[in-house]
């Protein structure tokens, strides 16, 4: 996930972009929770460096553009579990569509590209 102009990630952004949720027991995704030291929980969120270290995410900086990016968690497989992450994407008119709205319906999701 991209982090512009700061080195802190808000909990809501973290959950939306990575599926990792900030809970009393730590950072949690699917059935897995990773402890988070109390001092790492700020009012603004969690420092990107702490997330990278705790979750095994790469942290890449582009300081000349005031940008950071956290890669997905490494060390296992691309899928931590088989549940489709909550994902909201826009249609061609910018209207958001939540894949969660398809619960109850089977679907095949196909990635394509114009290039």
């Amino acid at each position, binding site marked *: *996930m*991209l982090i*512009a102009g700061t080195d802190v990630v808000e909990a809501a952004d973290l959950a939306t*972009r990575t*599926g990792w949720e900030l809970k009393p027991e730590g950072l949690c995704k699917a059935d897995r929770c990773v402890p988070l030291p109390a001092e790492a929980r700020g009012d603004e969120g969690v420092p990107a460096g702490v997330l990278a270290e705790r979750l*095994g*995410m*790469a*942290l*890449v900086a*582009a300081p*000349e*553009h005031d*940008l950071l*990016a*956290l*890669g*997905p*968690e*490494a*060390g*296992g*497989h*691309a*899928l*931590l*579990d*088989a*549940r*489709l*992450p909550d*994902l909201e*994407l*826009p*249609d*061609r*008119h*910018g209207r958001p*569509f939540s*894949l*969660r709205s*398809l*619960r*109850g*319906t*089977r*679907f*095949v*999701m*196909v*990635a*394509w*590209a*114009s*290039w």
Partner: protein
Amino acid sequence: MWQALRAELRPQGVEVVTVALDTGGAEAAGRWIDAAQPEHPSLIDAEHRLDALLGVVNVPTGVWVDEDGVLVRPPEVAHPGTSVLRDMLAEHGMPADSPQVLKDQVAAMAGIEIHPERYAAALRDWAAHGAASRFALSPDEVVARSRPRPPELSQAAAHFEIGAYLHTHGEPGAARHHFREAHRLDPANWTYKRQAWSFEDPFQGPTEHYDSDWVSEVRSRGPETYYPPPDL
């Protein structure tokens, strides 16, 4: 392309969702969507989030999702029973005045095996039999078949995201550095390469900015790495 299969599958309870992996967003993908006039959800993923979330490395790639939001097949090459491009080439051939880069691409493409009819047959089986279909995998199998992710792939994803941001914010030179890093760290990821090459040349031919291009990469990495045969 998916409309015909969707018309067949939807009455059996299987929806189709298409997602354009296009850093250019609606400006890049919109006219294709307008032309197709899909009745199914047709979305745009300008940040290539499916790459990072699911391990998508080329297009077209499909995943199957059951009623509970659980993947029953991981990312794999997905053609809707046919390949329009190949059908057109088979019927009409390559126009003699085509640019050389396109002729080279078609020649290289001939070595890439696809199995669109097998994928569509598997989808039809799942539509008919649901969880009892032999193509519906257990959660453990889905995870095990998803792409392993060592640390360098996480780094590649972060570089690609910075590159895409810089490209869309008017910094193409700075973007290229991060795209090149993504390519170096995750050489098997075709979406990272094809997206970046396409910014320089719509045919993804050789340019001064990258060490490789579509044709040279297919030749050097081997056509079987481009679309691995589906494990169906």
